[in-house]
């Protein structure tokens, strides 16, 4: 298996508030906050590291943070973050931090791209097709 423990994927804003955590392994809810605080602190100050590496990419006021283990190809994950943002951009047309309020949609998109810590889909059209159907049916 791609030991791609894209472990936690987080989105945080500059105030350090979490917007979208995605865990690929189950983590106890009480540990979420601790872990996230630490991760956010780390990215905003950029100093420490645990037994997984933290990779982040900044889009305006939004940070997307991914924890990966040592065997992972960091650059591939780094570009995956960008791919994710591009998909969001296509769906929300001009994605902004406010779109993160559509928590469910963002999660659904991410579920298509990332599964059990593996990158499973990167083709933008294919990622969005099912979601667009959902939107269509719920409208009618």
């Amino acid at each position, binding site marked *: *298996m*791609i030991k791609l423990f894209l472990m936690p994927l987080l989105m945080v*804003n500059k*105030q350090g*508030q979490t917007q*979208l*955590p995605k865990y690929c392994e*189950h983590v106890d*809810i*009480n540990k979420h*906050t601790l872990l*996230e605080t630490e991760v956010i602190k780390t990215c905003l100050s950029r*100093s*420490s*590291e645990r*037994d997984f590496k933290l990779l982040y990419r900044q889009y305006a006021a939004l940070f997307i943070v991914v924890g990966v283990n040592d065997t992972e*190809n*960091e*650059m*591939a994950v*780094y*570009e*995956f973050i960008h791919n994710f943002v591009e998909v969001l951009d*296509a*769906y*929300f047309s001009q994605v902004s931090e*406010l*779109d*993160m*309020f*559509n*928590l*469910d*949609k963002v*999660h*659904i998109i991410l*579920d*298509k791209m990332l*599964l*059990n810590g*593996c*990158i*499973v889909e*990167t*083709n*933008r*059209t*294919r990622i*969005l*097709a*099912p*979601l*667009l*159907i*959902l*939107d*269509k*049916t*719920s*409208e009618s």
Partner: protein
Amino acid sequence: MSDIVERTLTALPGLFLQGQPGGGPAAAKAPFSSRLGGLVRGVTALTSKHEEEKLIQQELSSLKATVSAPTTTLKTMKECMVRLIYCEMLGYDASFGYIHAIKLAQQGNLLEKRVGYLAVSLFLHESHELLLLLVNTVVKDLQSTNLVEVCMALTIVSQIFPREMIPAVLPLIEDKLQHSKEIIRRKAVLALYKFHLIAPNQVQHIHVKFRKALCDRDVGVMAASLHIYLRMIKENSSGYKDLTGSFVTILKQVVGGKLPVDFNYHNVPAPWLQIQLLRILGLLGKDDQRTSELMYDVLDESLRRAELSHNVTYAILFECVHTIYSVYPKSELLEKAAKCIGKFVLSPKINLKYLGLKALTYVVQRDPTLALQHQMTIIECLDHPDPIIKRETLELLYRITNSQNVTVIVQKMLEYLHQSKEEYIIVNLVGKIAELAEKYAPDNAWFIQTMNAVFSVGGDVMHPDISSNFLRLLAEGFDDETEDRQLRVYAVQSYLSLLDVENAFYPQRFLQVMSWVLGEYSYLLDNEKPEEVINRLFKLLMSDSISSETKAWLIAAVTKLTPQAQTSSTVERLIQEFTVSLDTCVRQHTFELKHLHENVEVMKNLLPVNKSCEDLVVDASLSFLDGYVAERLSQGAAPYKPHHQRQEEKLSQEKVLNFEPYGLSFSSSGFTGRQSPAGISLGSDISGNSAETGLKETNSLKLEGVKKLWGKEGYLPKKESKAGEEMEASPAPLENAVSENMDQAGTRRDQAPVLAQSKEEKEKQLLASSLFVGLGSESQINLLGKADNVSHKFRRKSKVKEAKSGEAASARDLTCSSLHSPSHVAHEENDYLTALQDRGSAEAEEFPLGSELLDPESVSELPVVGKLSDCALSAPSLFADSDMEVFHPPSSAAASASAAAPVTAEIALASSFLEETTEDVRSGRVEVCSDETVTMSSYKLWKDDCLLMVWSVATKSGSELKSANLDIFPAENFKTSEQPGCCLPAAEAGSTKTFQYRLQVERPFTEETLSGSVSYQRVDTHAVQLEFSVNLSLLDFIRPLKISTEDFGKLWLSFANDVKQNIKMSEPQAALPSALKTLQEKVRLHVVDVRGNEGLLACRLLPSTPSLLHCRVHADGLALWFRSSCPALPDCLSYQCQKAIEGS
């Protein structure tokens, strides 16, 4: 409906590409006025955590009211779910909504259903009990005609699904592999991948279908199957070599741009797919020239095509380089890869530089000369402002350390260490420094000083192994007596001077090291009286900052020093002070000291000087108690019972309440499990009396809720809190830790051409020459391994593996790969099993089947004498406690390879075993490895309490075998220990040497390989090392568990872990007796009872983990139901049983 959806599905991509995304995004933009938007805004506007908590609690209570109101519509429920997700995300408990998430997934329309599933996947985890309620919905959706619903169901299954429910959906998902829509096929593959992750045994039969998915006409499906392959190849690459061609072809097509354009990412064709394929190829080609040759072309092409243009191509290049250096080397490719690394390292971009350093770190393990090419860049990176670059550089230096550059590299690491504040970095770095210091230390002073720095900075956070390794190194010493002495003296001196520093604080761990060394070796100092040392230790003892654990160490040190001291008032003061200590451990140590102090002669005997490495002779059989035991027995005391027997008795007594008349209504109520699956057909074949089910349900629920205080070994005490040990005192930096000879080392090898360079440049050159010394061509570099010409300074005597590495290196080429293929083992085992079976059935012809199964003792009751001739060549029965022991003849394969002499030796050896092993069953002897002089064979001895592996090494010529050593590599799932008294005197004298190892299971597994190496001295006096491996199966550790039906019932209820399995059979009615017989013979299960069409079996996993099996015949097969106290055991056992039954 489904038609419309299907059509939309195909039409949508087009719509999307035209840039008119329909109503979707617009609709998505809309709900800003929604309650969630308000909530998020509210939270964002807040300034304190306290306010946030108040707001969220408010929100949660309003949500709670809404979701539990019966009038709430599904649409509102959907919105509530999203808000609940948000609240949970912020770390607040929203568990009241879990059940509603499941309901929403059950009842909602498409979008609502999706949100319901989403909430479930975010809220629950794999073993959450509510998850079982979702199974029905999933099954229903999988069968839906609406593709979107099927998609959703497949998505949730691949995210989170209860393991024990896999059989309920597996056939449905398998069907989906043939679906006409690619998205369904793709998701089905991903769902199977999930199953492979959580229960690999259950999807083993569909491996063929994975191959089909790999060849699917759709790229997405193929890509999905790669996840499964990557994982399987990682576990066992040899099974998939035949697929190399396919992977190469696929990669060629991808690289060549043959995929549809929408798979491109910034004009690079499917970059993540390329990376995945490269990774697979790297695993396949590792150490395999033939396979590697297949991929050279495509690797070359990948390198060529991925021109440096976009970030993602760097990722591909990085992976490509990694693969090129993983597979069997080809110089052309290596050159290109090295060039590529050079570009990365020299790049001004931090990300690229990092990637380059990471690649270099990997590559230098193969080819250290590459570091030479980039030495100046590496030096620059050492002072790079970015800490990540710095750390990666240190990691690289760590990999190229040798005995010539160790001082400089360790100095650099220490510099970084002193700047670091993060615990993780400190722990990591300290471990590396300690390792390097131990391996390459140039002299004693340097070693001790470096370790002092390690201990004072790493202190209490570092890995405890570091300090114990250090102490062992000091104690065991090296080959040179005077060296040992010097090192110890230096350590003692250094610690005494450290202790004399006023107001210095040291970590507890460091103080413990000091106290041990001082207690053990201060006698070496002539000018220092033991009284003085005791005084110092006492001063430390009285200090407030000492933890009670350290106090115990200190008192132990004082105790060792006391017999050497003439008279010491300090000792008496210490005794006075600490006999009243509140800490039990300290008090006990003090009392020991007190009583020993009263009798100095005994004390001197008990605590001899410098004997820490002498082995204590322990009478493990406790024979000195024999008289006492006999006396007690004659007085009517109860005889001793072994552990597992006591365990069983205790278990059967502990579970007091037996609710139902077990024997009578067995088939109707005996096995209605507490995890009665809601509406799943699996469980329904066992009809349950509802009242009794209820009763049992409550009973079992209680059991689960109860805190586990009592375990197998008795009371389970809480792990002692170590909080007390932590010290506020910050470690004082050691001034003398920075050794002077760093500078000397730096200048020693100053060969750099000194031209008109600035001073700074010169310094760098200097540093470079000292860092990279020993990497150049003057020392022979082996491409496939870092060969060190300089012998390590601190080489431990005791560690055979380390010590022999140098001598054995020359003879490495002799290392033979294991001759012992798995099939061979299987064959061997089958051999003896069939022999057994034959014999069993022959004897039991006159017995009705039931009695044969139920009463294995009957076999041994048969006249032994009569049978002896028949069985002379077959293995003895597994189950019969027969007194006679017959030896399986040496297997023909093994015997034919060896000459006559070893065979006789073997027989002699065998006879010497005879007395010892009469009660155990053993496998045939199998040759595991050999070279021109020796041959090594092994067999398994299935003892009642363990598995005993016996290896014997014999010389072919019959000449004497000198100093043979066996070394077993540590295995993950079990531990090995040498059986004391393993060398049999009879065999020792001759040409054969035998080793016995006891194997104990740590964790259940299905198949495992145990490998090790044997080294021996050849006549021409150089050492030879041979590697071998032996395959072990779970069955080697399974023993029958003889219990009564009643006990079975009690045990059954007390076990929480179960697995069910259906085996299809053509004639199920007739199958039970034969299946039971197979299980009894092949899996070594004990048949407890047979009632109508149900059978009860029991076994234990060594040493004493019980497992129970209930099997029942129904219309089209056999239902097996396993339960055990160990979570992983039922699954493994189920696999073995299935294999056994299907194989019979």
